[in-house]
Each structure stands twice: as structure tokens, then as C-alpha cells.
């Protein structure tokens, strides 16, 4: 008697947990007891929610999968929606947006995309390389066009052919850094600097290819690159200490882990009076001296416009080459310059897209 009661409790607990997720206990209990996983239930639910979405012929559903949460990627998403809106596809009016963030978990990323596919989205937007690859992996089987953004090297990620043409129904924008312009800017601001330090995460492909580019170009501007690799956020403080011992300034990539820990690096660098250059607007806002970088909102807008063309049927994703932002914009932070006792040359500050006068925490 007791035994069977215990079993019952165990089964009930497990089932109610499933039910807690689904919100409909009866249904889940039956599917689970059939020995048939609760998946059947899942698909029926998704189908109903999918069919509610369109109301009229010109209504679209877009699934946005973002790999991790940080400023640049959030800006991409924001810009993407703005770009779609410019083309008359407005969220809440004729656009349903399904947004999911995988918090840098590859397993979750693939489930997110599968969910999008099951909800019959018209287009998947993959933000950052792993998400774009996952989206392509699913999209090509389900015939859903994929638009990516914030993929530094689409060719290395096999999302585009070497000539920039699409490998399938997939295209988008790359956030390749304007390396030579950044080096030129650093030389203009620090005429005497010899070494530039770069911290990167060994597990981020984008960082590796950008560092190669830095190393190749640094000599032309009389710099030497000192790089230090980290594997987790926990390594940042120690790596920053050792790097700051060896360099005249630091420049950042769009390395996710490093950018997320940027305040730590900025704090340590400020104590040693070493300037830190950023790679995009958000980094300058929080205390990098300057950046020749990308405006991710602009990048997102460009991506959104491409997506609009695909949604409206003007062009197929497979017919558009991937795009990069041609012109790098200068961003400076006057407050940081003042703290470091550095003057930003007039020709740079006058051409700045934006100059910040304080440090946002």
C-alpha cells in the first residue's frame, strides 16, 4: 500500500511538473501516461498559437533568435525592427515578433529555432554567429529564409561563399571591424604608443580572425600587438593585470565575453592611466576613450531593410549578397580623455558621429 502510494506521489510530481510547464495538466497527464512523451501536446499548442498570428494577407511573423544578451546585440535587434518599420512592416500592426534569447547556450538555441519553425514564421533572424548557423541548419530543411546579423565572418561560418554570394536562402549583414581605420585613429590620438594590447576569448572565432587582421595591419602603423587569451569571465581580472603591465594602450574587439566584463578592464586601466579603445558606441559610452566602430543600430536597420525585401517578396534571400557597413564612424568620450590627460585631435573630434561628455555606469 505504502509503496504504491509513494510511486503515485512520484508520478504525480513528475506529471505536475510537466503540467506546470504546459499549463494544462489533464492533457499532459494523458500523453505522459500513454508512454508517449508530452511532445504531442507541445506540437498541438504551438500550432494553435501559430495560427492566431496572421490577421489578413499582408501580415508577417518573424522569429528573432539572439545568442546572448549584451548591448551590441540588443542594438542589432532594435535596429532590425526599426529597419523593418522603415519599410512599412511595423511590430504590432502587420508584424508579429517572436523574440528569444538563448543566453549563450547552444542546446537552447537549437530548440528556440525549432520552435520558430513549428510556429511557421515567415523569416528567422539569427543574431550572432552560432544562432545564425543554428537558424540556417533548421531553416534550410524547413524552407524558411534566414537573415543574420552580427556575424563577423560569414564566409568562415559557411553562411556565405567566398565571393559573398549566399549558400542558400540565407543572407544578412556582417559586423566586421574596420581594423585599419581603428589603427589609424589610435596612431592619431597616441603618437608615441608602441604596443597595443588585445584581450580575447579563445572560444570566439570572430575574435581570432580579427586579431589576425590586427597583427597583419599593425606593422603599417608602427604598432606591435600583444594579445592575451581568456576562456571564461573569471579569467578577465588576472589577464587584464598582466596585459596592462605590457602595453601602452588597449583596444577591444567585439568579443562577447570581454565586452561583458569591460568595466573590470576599464577600472584597472584607469588606475594605471592606460587608455582603452572600444570597437563600437556602447563601449565608448561606458568609458572607452574612443572607437572607430560600428553603430549596431545602423547595422540592424540595414539588416531589417534586407529582411523587408525578403518578406515582401521583392527579392529572395538566396539572391542577395551579405552586406557590411562601409563607413566606420568615430566615437569619442571627452570625459575619459580629460581623466587620462589626453587631447583628442581636432580633426577626429570634429568628424565625430557622437562625442560623450560623461561616463555612463
Amino acid at each position, binding site marked *: 500500500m505504502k*509503496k*504504491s502510494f*509513494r*510511486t503515485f506521489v*512520484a*508520478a504525480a*510530481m*513528475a506529471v505536475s*511538473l*510537466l503540467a506546470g*510547464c*504546459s*499549463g494544462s495538466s489533464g492533457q499532459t497527464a494523458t500523453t*505522459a*501516461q500513454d*508512454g508517449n*512523451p*508530452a*511532445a*504531442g*501536446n*507541445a*506540437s498541438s*499548442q*504551438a*500550432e494553435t*498559437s501559430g495560427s492566431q498570428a496572421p490577421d489578413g494577407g499582408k501580415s508577417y511573423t518573424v522569429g528573432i533568435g539572439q545568442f546572448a544578451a549584451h548591448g551590441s546585440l540588443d542594438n542589432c535587434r532594435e535596429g532590425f525592427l526599426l529597419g523593418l518599420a522603415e519599410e512599412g512592416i511595423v511590430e504590432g500592426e502587420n508584424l508579429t515578433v517572436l523574440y*528569444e*534569447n*538563448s*543566453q*549563450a*547556450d*547552444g*542546446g*537552447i538555441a*537549437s*530548440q*528556440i529555432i*525549432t*520552435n520558430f*519553425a*513549428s*510556429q511557421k514564421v515567415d523569416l528567422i533572424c539569427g543574431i550572432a*554567429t*552560432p544562432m545564425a*548557423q*543554428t537558424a*540556417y*541548419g533548421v531553416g534550410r530543411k*524547413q524552407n524558411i529564409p534566414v537573415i543574420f546579423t552580427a556575424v563577423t565572418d560569414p564566409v*568562415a*561560418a*559557411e*553562411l556565405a561563399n567566398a565571393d559573398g554570394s549566399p*549558400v542558400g536562402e540565407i543572407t544578412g549583414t556582417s559586423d566586421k571591424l574596420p581594423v585599419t581605420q581603428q589603427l589609424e585613429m589610435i596612431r592619431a590620438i597616441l603618437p608615441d604608443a608602441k604596443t597595443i594590447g588585445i584581450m580575447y576569448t*579563445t*572560444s570566439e*572565432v570572430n575574435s581570432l580572425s580579427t586579431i589576425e587582421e590586427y597583427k597583419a595591419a599593425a606593422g603599417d602603423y608602427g604598432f606591435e600587438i600583444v594579445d592575451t587569451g581568456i*576562456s571564461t569571465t573569471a579569467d578577465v581580472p588576472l589577464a587584464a593585470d598582466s596585459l596592462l603591465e605590457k602595453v601602452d594602450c588597449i583596444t577591444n574587439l567585439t568579443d562577447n565575453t570581454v565586452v561583458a566584463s569591460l568595466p573590470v578592464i576599464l577600472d584597472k586601466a584607469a588606475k594605471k592611466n592606460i587608455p582603452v579603445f572600444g570597437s563600437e558606441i556602447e563601449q565608448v559610452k561606458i568609458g572607452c576613450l574612443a572607437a572607430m566602430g560600428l553603430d549596431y543600430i545602423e547595422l540592424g536597420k540595414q539588416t531589417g531593410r534586407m529582411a523587408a525585401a525578403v518578406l515582401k517578396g521583392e527579392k529572395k534571400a538566396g539572391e542577395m549578397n551579405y552586406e557590411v557597413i562601409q563607413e566606420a564612424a568615430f566615437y569619442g568620450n571627452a570625459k575619459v580623455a580629460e581623466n587620462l590627460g589626453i587631447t583628442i585631435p581636432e580633426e577626429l573630434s570634429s568628424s565625430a558621429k557622437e562625442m560623450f561628455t560623461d561616463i555612463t555606469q
Partner: protein
Amino acid sequence: MTLLLGVLEEGLIYGVMALGVYITYKILDFPDLSVDSTFPMGAALTASALLAGINPVLTLFLSFGAGALAGCATGFIHVKLKVRDLLSGIIVMTGLYSLNLRFAGGRANVPVFTQDTIFENPFLAGIMPQWLSPYLMVLILFLIIIICKVLLDLYLNTRSGYLLRAVGDNEALVTSLAKDKGMVKILGLAIANGFSSLAGCIYCQHKGFFEISVGTGTIVMGLASVIIGIQLLCPENGTSFLSALKLPQVRPTTAVIVGSIVYKACISLAISMGMEANDLKLITSILFLVILVVSAERRKKVKSHA
């Protein structure tokens, strides 16, 4: 339907890994964290092997073998160097992270979209009728996992398999049979990590790329699958709802695979309910805790009978 297939595909891939975790956690009573790194190891090796033009089917065996070696390393560190079980797993897990990057040719992300895989190759394209293609992946995964399961079941019924089970339950018995319990443990870990690595291999071919972050949380998924499956379908006192409903009993290996699919279904449901990914880990851990608490009660009972 797409979602159902998606859940089945994910569940079956991770089910292979869960078979491994079943051996370590349930049979050997060994909290083996090395699966967190053997899973991406299988994926890394597979990506490199496919790029080198090795037959996709061969990569399955290659990955299993490499995983088994890593499992031996964990076992060796624990048994011969007398490091605590949890720590020896952590040591191997940490070390393999670097090695995995090496295996993948120094890159953290290796796409294999254009290579032939076990799911997409000229041979399959030639023999498979068109209407079958949406189900092809599930069929292949099903085939692989059934082979794994049957082989594991057969093994567990051999002399060596009995010893493996005995080590988890009663080490003294194994010693009294004049067998080295350490060697048995190493063997168990080797098989377990072989399965984990094999799952990584399948994952890589299924997704079309290797990414160093795929290993994150593998052990949690494995444990969840094992615990859910066992508690649902074959609890230790033998009275599951299957017997209550007069349905045939299933083997633990089957239960574990079902557990993996149920777990993936839960996650999928949570996502389609609009749950944020930020909260998913919390759900997993609560799910985990509740089931563990329920099973802990039962375990005490079993021990007191022993």
C-alpha cells in the same frame, strides 16, 4: 508536427548521452562531470574528421572511442591516483576544454554544412523516397539509439556487465569475487563517456556545425533525463504506473531515453509558452530538485533493506 519532430530529434540525440549518464549516475553511483566535455569532444572530432573527408559513419565509432579514452582518464585519476570522484570529473572536464579547441583545429566554431553527414549523403538521397525526408532524421536517430540501447542491454547481461552493476550496489561483493573494482569503474566510465561523445558526434552532424559552447549543461540534461525517465517508468521498487495500468515493464535504458525526450519536451513547451531563456535553468533545477527529493526518500528505503 515540426515541433514534435524537433523534440524527438533533440531528445534522441541527448538520449544517447543520457544512456552514458545512466551508467555513471545510476549504476556506478559516480557523479561524473566529464560528460560536459566529452560531448563537445565528440562534436569537435567529428567536425574535423568530416572536413578531412572521413566517412560520416566512421566518425560515430571514432567519437565513441575517443570518449571512452577520456572516460578512462577520469577513471584512472579517480581509481589509481585516488582523487575524489567529483574532482576527477572536473579535472578531465577542464582539461578537455582546451583539448577540444585543439581537436577543432584551434577554432571554437567549425561549420560542416557542406560536408556529407550521416543524415545527408548521396547514398541516402539515392535510396530514400521523397515523402520520407521530413522523418528521415528521426528515423536515423531512432535506429542509432536502438542499436546503442540493445548493445548496452546485452552488455549489462554479460559477466562483466553484472560486475559493473555490482560495483555500484556493493563494492565488497566484487572484491570478494576476487575482481578489481577499480578496473570495473574505469570500464563503466569509459562506456559512459563513449556514449556522451557519440551523442556529441551526432549533434554536430545534425546541427551542421561544432561550437565549443555546446557542452554547457550536458550533465544537467543527462541527469534530468535519467531521473525523470527512471522515476516515471521504472522506479526502484518496481511499481510504476506502468504496472498499475497492467502495461509491460520497460528496461531502465528505455526509460532513460523516454526521460530525455520528456525533458526536451518540457523545455520546448516552456519556450513556446513564452518563457524567457533566462528562466529555463531555474525550471530545470526545480524539476531536478523535486524529483531528487522524491527519489532520495526511496533510496534510503532500499539501503535499509540491503
